[in-house]
């Protein structure tokens, strides 16, 4: 059974690679200069050049530069979104005043499709890093914040009352008793929001940028360089996977009670 499972897991991958390989071979037999479905060798060579050779114009290794600037944007955006989401969500869940103040507003913000305000962001915030980070932030913050809010709401009221009667200050109850309980949930939600964050990052880089993974893809699209685009897509997938995996592992090792409570 184990082998069958492994086989079934691998099957769609093998099939897609085989289909791609055949189609690419057919196109290359017709036209050796075909750029639409590059062969694996072509992709390998292009990826190698992007990753290890120094670009004569900028004096940098392009793939490294692109990865670093994209990672910088997405990480700053996501850290900001999750920290602010935690603090506001926590306070919204505990204090009725904060809830009244921000709950409806954040719900409203979360309904606006972030990509639709992209042109506004660039016009108001300029073409530098800030607009791109803001897009990632706006796209992920409301969801994280509302999720934390709902998680806090689910914590039994008795626990809060108890901690307050035992002499905890409001500050202590909020950040000492309740916050540690929602932290794994925060990491989990942030992890799931990364998919959306990548989308916003690439959209922003496609429109106005001077480096980044999305920038490169949309730049070389200009001359149909699929041999660069496809390796970049895999790089993005790989980075996404690594982030997802490490956050998952972190939650599993640090908060085993959370995993158990999820069943």
């Amino acid at each position: 059974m184990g082998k069958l499972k492994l086989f079934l897991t691998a099957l769609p991958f093998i099939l897609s690679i085989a289909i791609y390989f055949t189609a690419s071979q057919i196109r290359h037999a017709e036209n050796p200069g075909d750029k639409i479905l590059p062969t694996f060798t072509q992709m390998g060579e292009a990826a190698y050049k992007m990753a290890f050779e120094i670009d004569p114009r900028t004096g940098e290794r392009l793939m490294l530069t692109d990865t670093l600037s994209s990672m910088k944007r997405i990480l700053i955006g996501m850290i900001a979104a999750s920290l602010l989401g935690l603090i506001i969500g926590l306070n919204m869940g505990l204090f009725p005043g904060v809830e009244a103040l921000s709950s409806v507003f954040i719900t409203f913000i979360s309904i606006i499709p972030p990509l639709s305000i992209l042109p506004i962001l660039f016009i108001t915030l300029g073409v530098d890093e800030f607009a791109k980070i803001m897009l990632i932030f706006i796209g992920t913050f409301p969801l994280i914040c509302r999720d934390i809010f709902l998680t806090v709401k689910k914590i039994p009221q008795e626990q809060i009352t108890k901690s307050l009667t035992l002499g905890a200050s409001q500050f202590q109850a909020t950040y000492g008793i309740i916050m540690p309980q929602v932290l794994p949930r925060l990491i989990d939600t942030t992890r799931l929001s990364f998919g959306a964050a990548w989308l916003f990052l690439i959209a922003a880089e496609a429109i106005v940028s001077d480096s980044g993974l999305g920038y490169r893809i949309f730049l070389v699209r200009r001359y149909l360089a699929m041999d660069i685009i496809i390796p970049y897509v895999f790089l993005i997938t790989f980075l996404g996977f690594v982030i997802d995996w490490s956050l998952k592992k972190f939650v599993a090792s640090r908060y085993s009670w959370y995993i158990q409570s999820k069943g």
Partner: protein
Amino acid sequence: MMINRLKGQQLSSILYILKFDYGLFFSYIESSQYESGTGGIMKKSIIAVIVLSMAFFSLSCGQQKKEYRIAWSHYTGWEPWEYAEHAGILKKWGDKYNITIKLERINDYIESINLYTAGKFQGCAMTNMDALTIPAVGGVDSTVLIIGDYSNGNDGIITRGEKSLKDLKGKKVMLVQLSVSHYLLSRALDMNGMQEKEMTLINTSDAEIGAIFKTQKDAIAVTWNPILMNAVKTPGATMIFDSSKIPGEILDLMVVHSKAPDELKKALTGAWFETMQALEDKEKMKAAVEYMAANSGATYDEFIAQLKTTAIFYKASDAAKFSKEEKLKKTMDYVRKFSFDKGLFGKAAASADYVGIEFPDGTVLGDKKNVKMRFDDKYMQMAAEGKL
């Protein structure tokens, strides 16, 4: 992909067939479900596949007139194509050579060239630089059928304060990188003994560049019409360089697959120069410009202004003559060197000689064994002599 190819008439006939067969097939499913329970779903999908493939098959057999698809995107120099279709000129020339020419506008310029290169279109409107770097470098043997015009001020560098190119040192410049704007900037810098390294280039979508230029106080942009025309109206904006300083280098073309049939080449060339005649004719011109202006979202006056910065070859003889001039070779040499320097030839090309560009007199620039871009004056010449 399949669905995409089936448009208009084809689509309606396929719908008809489907509807027709669906009636039969639906009654069959009903009865089969009673008979075999959930097994019906399997049968349903098998039958659906058979019906669909039959429909596709019958479609591919029953065509009389050959249909050719031509792609274009919005640009002053290409708007006449849409007018040619609107005025029935394309249909007239198609009928003359017993073919159907289907003109399709693609919203995104680069996407239209990519679709042409992928073989979805027989012809596509594009610039000389893109014709070289996308289809030709991609191994798609392409022929420049018509040289429509050259940019004579349609592309420019605009600033909000800087007075000359020297002032761009250390600044951020927005442009669609690797486009003709980039070429223009590169030529401008060359002429002033400067280098691209001296500034930061920001790749900016042509959809946003106009709005960003207007709202950012220190913006510098390289762009084309109609964006350029609107952006330069911003208070404090100056045009410090434009394509009239490098006339005849940014060419707007109709490019077709070299293996495309003669009928298509003749019909397209004939239709184009008849449209050009209409634009020269004082009576017809007004209606044509009104139509093109409305179609491109400009006012009549704005469109006239754009036409002034576009050096259109109204006469086929002028276009044919231009394609035979020595200057064209020099231009293409600039273009291919620029393209190679910027990596537009891809990672596989070892030098600018990677692809060959053939000129009407038979000379080849670059690799003679790998000629993928051909300037052909044959059809323009025929149009000039009234032989089409």
